[in-house]
C-alpha cells in the first residue's frame, strides 16, 4: 500500500482532526486514542479534504507558507499517515 499520486486524499472516517485550546495544538482522535500533532503534520492533514491530490496539497502549502521544495517531506508524511490508517484514498 503506497500513496497514489493521481487519487484524492481524505482523512479516514474513523479519525477526527481537532484543535485543542488547552494544549494549543491539533490532535487526531480515534477510538480510545489520541495523537498530538506537530504544526506541519496538522497543516498537511487539514488539506486532506477528499478533493486534493498529492500535487494539490504540495502547492496549497507551498503557497500558504511562500516556500518551495516541500514535496518530499509531504510525501514522506502522507505515506506514514496512510500506513497508520489516518488517511485513505478510496473514493
Amino acid at each position, binding site marked *: 500500500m503506497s500513496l497514489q499520486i493521481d487519487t484524492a486524499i481524505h482523512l479516514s*472516517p*474513523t479519525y477526527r482532526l*481537532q484543535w485543542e485550546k*488547552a494544549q494549543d495544538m491539533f490532535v487526531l482522535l480515534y*477510538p480510545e486514542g*489520541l495523537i498530538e500533532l506537530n504544526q506541519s503534520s496538522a497543516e498537511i492533514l487539514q488539506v486532506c479534504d477528499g478533493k486534493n491530490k498529492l500535487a494539490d496539497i504540495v502547492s496549497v502549502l507551498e503557497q500558504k507558507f511562500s516556500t518551495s521544495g516541500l514535496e518530499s517531506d509531504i510525501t514522506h508524511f502522507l505515506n506514514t499517515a496512510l500506513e497508520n490508517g489516518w488517511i485513505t484514498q478510496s473514493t
Partner: protein
Amino acid sequence: MAGSLKAPSPPRWLLAELTYSCPLQCPYCSNPLDYADFKEELSTDDWKRVLKQSREMGAVQLGFSGGEPLVRKDLVELVDYSHELGYYTNLITSGYNMDEAKIIELKEAGLDHIQISLQASSKELNDFIAGTESFEHKKVVAKLIKKHGYPMVLCVVLHRQNIHQMKDILEMAIELGADFVELANTQYYGWAHHNRDQLMPTQEQLTTAEAIANEYQASQKGKMKIYYIVPDFFEGRPKACMNGWGTTFLTIAPDGLALPCHSARQLPNFDCPSVRNHSISEIWNQSKAFNYFRGDDWMQEPCRSCPEKGKDFGGCHCQAFLLTGDATNADPVCDLSPLHHVVTDAIEQAATSAAEKPLVFRNSKNSKVF
C-alpha cells in the same frame, strides 16, 4: 518532566465509570470486590459538572464505562452534553442492554465510538464466563453497531479458559466487521486478583496465542487493527502504568471518587478526593493522591537508580501494593525487583492448584462477602 516541580500536564483522558451495576458477572472484572458497598451514584448534574471542568482543563478522550454504562438512564443526555463540549466519546459496553433504537439514539446524540466486549468465541464459554446468557445478542448488537456507521472495537479479555480460542475469536471479529480488536490478557486487579489461580494462562498457551496474534496482524494489515496486550506477569518488565501517574488519565468512580488509576481506591491512607467536595482542577493539581507518584522522589531502590525509570515509572503502584503491601515498591513483575518471586510463585501456584477452586463470579451477593 519527571522529578520537576512544574505544573502537571493536563488530563487528556477522562474515564467516567457511571455505575457499578452490571447484568454480567465476569470473574475477571476490575471493579472493586466490595463494589456493592458504593451505592450512592453521582447525579446527572454532578456528571455534567465533572465533564465541563475536565474538558476545560484539557481532557478530550472520554470513556463511559462501569459496570455497564447502559444501565444509567441519563446516558444519552450525558453523551449529548459531552459531544457539545467537544469530547471524542467512547462507550465501553457489554452490549447486553443494547438495542437498535438505543444505537440510533446515541448516534444522534453524537456518540463517536462503541467498544463491545465478548467473553469467548463460542456461546457455551461466553455465557459461562459472563455468568449470563448473552452471546447471540452481543453478536446481533455488534452487527447493528456497524450497520449504523460507528467505528467498533471488539474487546475480549484473555485468560486460561478462553485463550485457546484465539483463532476463532479473530475470525469472529472479522465476521462481525470490527475495525479494531483488543485482545487483552487479564490484569490481576479486583475480581481477577481473587480468581487469579483459575485465570492465569500457561507459558505454552501464551506462546501459541501470541503467534496467532502476529499472524493475523500481518494478514489483516490495513483492514482490521489488532492490539494484543501482553500479560505483564510473564514479561520481566512492568507496564508504564497510566502513562505516568497523574499525567494523562483521570478516572471518576460511580460514587464520585477521583482516581489516578482505576484501582487506586484500595491504596491505604491515600484519601482519594471526591468530586462532590472538590473541583477537577483542585483534584488534579493539588490533591495528595494525584501528586503522590508524580516525578520520582517517592521511589525506592532498585527503581531510584535504575536507568529504565523514565520508561516505566517503576510500573504499576496498585499492583506493587496488592502483591507486596507497599505501593512505593517496584512493581514486582519487574525481574529486577527483590520481590519478583511473588510473581513467579503465583504463576507456579496457578499451574498446580487451578483445578481445586471454583471461579468466584462478580455479583452483589458475592461482593457483600468482601
